[in-house]
């Protein structure tokens, strides 16, 4: 049985994921322009542009499209997508900018001092550097609402821990290699954690269960313990505390 090899790197490349999904790959690296194309196509398809699409998973450099083969066959969907991609505007439109309040250090941000020592920085310089950058949500994945962020300043790039920790709290702000994260649910992780946000990124009982989506931009705003406690209380009461800023 001859097995078809992947076509040579020619993007966008569309590959079957079985009989009910396909993936559109835009590149084989991580960069903002690629993510922008993924998000733009996801937004376009989320509007019902093509019949038969059931679900979408935008990731760093590709978009997974789940379809119902009773409504659209994979080969027809592929040609419709290729047509659409030729006409698709390159740039995504209307990115949202969220300000994420974070309390650096503490129990959840237990790696802050060790990371500052490793980077030969003061604690406050590290906080200032981490909070100075604009981050981009490349992908929500791994767990509900878990945000993978790009834009971490190079000086803060740090390999993962050799031994993962068993439990990291929801809201933990992490660093894993060149990526940053906001954890949405508690669980084990080998990333380093330097802060936490009172924001609840994922709440299945909220009208909008997931605060962030791929393509959003983020800035971290350092807060003190007293404000964190106030925000924790507001979140516990179910009040929306997230802040968006004009682009």
């Amino acid at each position, binding site marked *: *049985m001859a097995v078809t090899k*992947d076509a040579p790197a020619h993007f966008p490349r569309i590959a079957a*994921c079985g*009989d009910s999904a396909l993936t559109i790959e835009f590149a084989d690296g991580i960069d903002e322009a690629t993510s922008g194309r993924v998000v733009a196509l996801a937004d376009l398809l989320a509007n019902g542009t093509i019949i038969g699409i059931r679900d979408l998973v935008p*990731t760093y*450099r590709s978009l997974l499209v789940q379809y119902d083969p*009773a409504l659209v066959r994979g080969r027809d969907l592929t040609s419709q997508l290729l047509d659409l991609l030729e006409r698709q505007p390159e740039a995504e439109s209307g990115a949202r900018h969220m300000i994420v309040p974070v309390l650096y250090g503490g129990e959840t941000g237990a790696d802050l001092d060790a990371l500052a020592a490793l980077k030969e920085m003061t604690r406050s310089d590290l906080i200032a550097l981490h909070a100075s950058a604009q981050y981009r949500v490349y992908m*929500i*994945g791994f*767990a509900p609402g878990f945000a993978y962020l790009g834009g971490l300043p190079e000086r803060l790039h740090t390999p993962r821990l050799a031994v993962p920790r068993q439990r990291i709290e929801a809201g933990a702000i992490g660093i894993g290699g060149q990526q940053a994260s906001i954890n949405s649910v508690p669980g084990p992780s080998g990333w380093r954690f330097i802060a936490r946000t009172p924001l609840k990124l994922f709440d299945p009982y909220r009208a909008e269960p997931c605060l962030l989506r791929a393509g959003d931009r983020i800035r971290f705003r350092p807060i003190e313990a007293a404000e964190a406690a106030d925000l924790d209380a507001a979140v516990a009461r179910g009040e929306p505390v997230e802040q968006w800023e004009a682009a």
Partner: protein
Amino acid sequence: MSVLHVKDAGPMMTVQDLGRAGLSRFGVSGAGPMDTPSLRIANRLVGNAETDAGLEFAQVGGTFVVDTPVRIAVTGAAVGMTIDGKPLHAWESHHLLPGQTLRIGAVINAVWGYLAISGGIDTPPVLGARTTHLRTGLGGLDGRRLAAGDRLPLGTGSSAPLLAMRQPLARPRGPFRIVPGPQAGHFDAAAWKLFLEEPFRIATHRDRMAQMLDGPAISAFAGHDIISDGTVAGSIQVPSSGRPIVLMAERQTTGGYPKIATVATIDLPRLAQAMTGSSVRFRVVSRDEAEDLLMDQSRALTSALAGLEEKRETTGIKETTAMSGRSNA
């Protein structure tokens, strides 16, 4: 409100409906049953909508009583089951009355069984579905496995006759069909030859999220790390150990291992139901073929559901009337 009392539960019993659709982009797994056709059939046997929630269990069921007359059906495989000690068949519905005890024992020559109850399990939907996703604790009863002492709310059942599935739904046989990709090209001809020509075995390491396979190590010459991308039920990931992992109902939405191929949807329930240690071989089909197979099966299931036979109630009727009368007194 009617209640199903769980007197005793097997180790892996959860509330399941057809899944939590359309939220993958927020990292929310679709979850749903391991053997979707079996849950759909169970629901129809008791007069429910196919989208109603029932119970899924692995290997062994449990002991149940109700506080209102219901109809129940067990599917998935042959199962040892009794009501008040009287042996009953799977794949058909039975009356279960207040005061009677339903015992569901071992699943025979398979893994997953399904119990549907008329009216459906009426736990509150979470994000539009009642399916339980254990890893994130979403849905079902508090997002967890059921245990002795649990009480599950039941919806209002329709007044349907007892039904039986006389012709078992034909399970596919032979090698498991796969569609190559999306990272087929990460694997060279030698790796593909091993993957398609050598048998694998269903490993003991298996759950609702993933099925590991024992067998030859499959090496990805292009590396075993990719930039994380989306997954589907049936994605065959190959981590650096070379041991393939088939993602199942409760998979996470993204993953960073190359996926050599995707199991055809038609063969996924069969993979879920394959006994631990049994042999698995793969055969490549085109996407078109896999889509055709899926739609053929869908039509066959629809016609099987439409053709469920009404059971002739003989001695059961008197018993039923007497029992209902007593419980109403």
